[in-house]
């Protein structure tokens, strides 16, 4: 995902990206509209893949008519809550288990088993426990985010340089200060480095949860459309989700760059 350095090179690359997208849409259009292909063929492909113009029209109406916003808002809220709760839980448990060898040895097989389990199957259970509202989706997202953050924090604490630790002890740090000034910063740096994955997982949890049973959210819109074989609306939903995921990714990249200024990057030089 390396960006080209010079502005004109970057602009050209962006142009190629746009052209490629346009070409894909053109191909999609050509294969689903009679003209280049027979009417029979177009009918079949349109049934399975939808028609790009229809998809864009549905998307347009969603945004102009304002129908999408409450659903998008709910999905965003679920993603955010799942991310925050899962990260906090993963950070806490990760720090605790990394610093308490006995508890860690005891919990180890259970952590491994829970991580190995495909957690999407928990969605129906969460729906029974927490109902069809936000909470069940957040719970699903939390189970996905937790393990990513947990393993990263655990690793982060284990990989604290023994020299840095000994140095802090010589400088007079108490056990609590070691936790606050050494273990926590080291662990959070690992959490931030897994930010892309964990935000993505929170999003997956929200959408999958909605898809499996809900009354609101973009996943719900897709589910509804699928029920009446409205393939164009399904694709519109996918389009919105993808765009949304990209926006989230950009936000995360910005946040990460802000928070990890202290981390060494590969040599940065500037072209003259």
């Amino acid at each position: 995902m390396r960006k080209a350095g010079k502005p004109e090179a970057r602009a050209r690359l962006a142009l190629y990206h746009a052209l490629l997208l346009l070409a894909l849409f053109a191909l999609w259009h050509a294969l689903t509209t009679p003209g280049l292909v027979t009417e029979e063929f177009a009918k079949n492909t349109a049934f399975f893949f939808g028609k790009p113009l229809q998809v864009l029209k549905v998307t347009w109406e969603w945004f102009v008519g304002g129908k999408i916003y409450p659903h998008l808002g709910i999905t965003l809220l679920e993603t955010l809550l799942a991310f925050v709760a899962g990260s906090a839980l993963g950070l806490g448990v990760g720090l605790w288990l990394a610093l308490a060898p006995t508890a860690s040895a005891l919990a180890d097989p259970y952590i491994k088993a829970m991580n190995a389990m495909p957690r999407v199957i928990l969605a129906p259970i969460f729906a029974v426990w927490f109902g069809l509202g936000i909470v069940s989706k957040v719970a699903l997202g939390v189970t996905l985010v937790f393990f990513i953050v947990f393993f990263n924090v655990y690793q982060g604490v284990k990989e604290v340089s023994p020299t840095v630790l000994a140095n802090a002890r010589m400088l007079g740090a108490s056990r609590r200060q070691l936790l606050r000034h050494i273990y926590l910063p080291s662990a959070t740096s690992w959490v931030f480095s897994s930010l892309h994955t964990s935000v993505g997982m929170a999003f997956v949890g929200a959408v999958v949860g909605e898809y499996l049973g809900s009354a609101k959210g973009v996943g719900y819109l897709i589910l509804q459309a699928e029920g009446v074989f409205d393939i164009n609306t399904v694709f519109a939903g996918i389009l919105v989700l993808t765009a949304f995921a990209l926006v989230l990714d950009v936000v995360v990249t910005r946040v990460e760059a802000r928070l990890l200024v202290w981390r060494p990057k590969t040599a940065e030089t500037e072209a003259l």
Partner: protein
Amino acid sequence: MAAAGSASAAVLAAAPSPALALDGITCTFAARAGAKGADAGRYTAVRDTTIAVAPGEFVSVVGPTGCGKSTLLNVAAGLLAPSAGGVTVFGEPLAGINRRAGYMFQAEALMPWRSALANVMAGLEFRGTAKAAAEAQARDWLTRVGLAGFEHRYPHQLSGGMKKRVALAQMLILDPQILLMDEPFSALDVQTRQLMENELLELWGANRKSVLFITHDLEEAISLSDRVIVLSAGPATRPIGEFAIDLPRPRDVAEIRMTPRFVELHGAIWHAMKAEVLKGYAQSRQA
């Protein structure tokens, strides 16, 4: 030439107590992977070692690589409990971390997530000094080690020599009475190293602390110290010789190496060390 050797407990009680005394230290570790023979299961890094550092004295410990020099320093710092023997600090037995000592590590020890200023401040912060006062002192120390203007750089943005300066300021800001230094400049190039050695001597000369300086570089040891202690090759390292360095101060580490007295001392100590260095080399080849 050899100075008063190992100080026994009885002598310690009578004389003014040394700043730091390692008394009969033995450090035995659990087996290292691949150990064979009768000693399998145990590895004795240091055996029955007694070293005393007087207040204001600069003592260097030299020995072949891998002879357990760092182990001794960790014992003096209270980071490692010896298997036998004890440490006294200004006459008091040491339990836990040595609060009167500052430690400069061989490896990278700065907190990478803190700027140079925040790193230098860390010790004061841990001790509960008010933030503004701590920051003012840290700025002052960064200036003293020649890093004014680099306050907000992170360790990865500093060169090797600059990082060592930050580490030096980080240690000295707490005004420890004892400085423990574990090959602090071994990773630096020769020029930077001599600059740092001179700066260390200058800072030390202004406010004499007791220094226990570990190095494998004999020239560095002689040019900095009042006394040089030679260790045998490991395992079961112990002191095999002690040499008082009577070169005049203040010294310039680059220039003093040319003086006849330096060459003479170097010859004498090297003669004592040579057999051990060869032994250590032979062992490392076998391993």
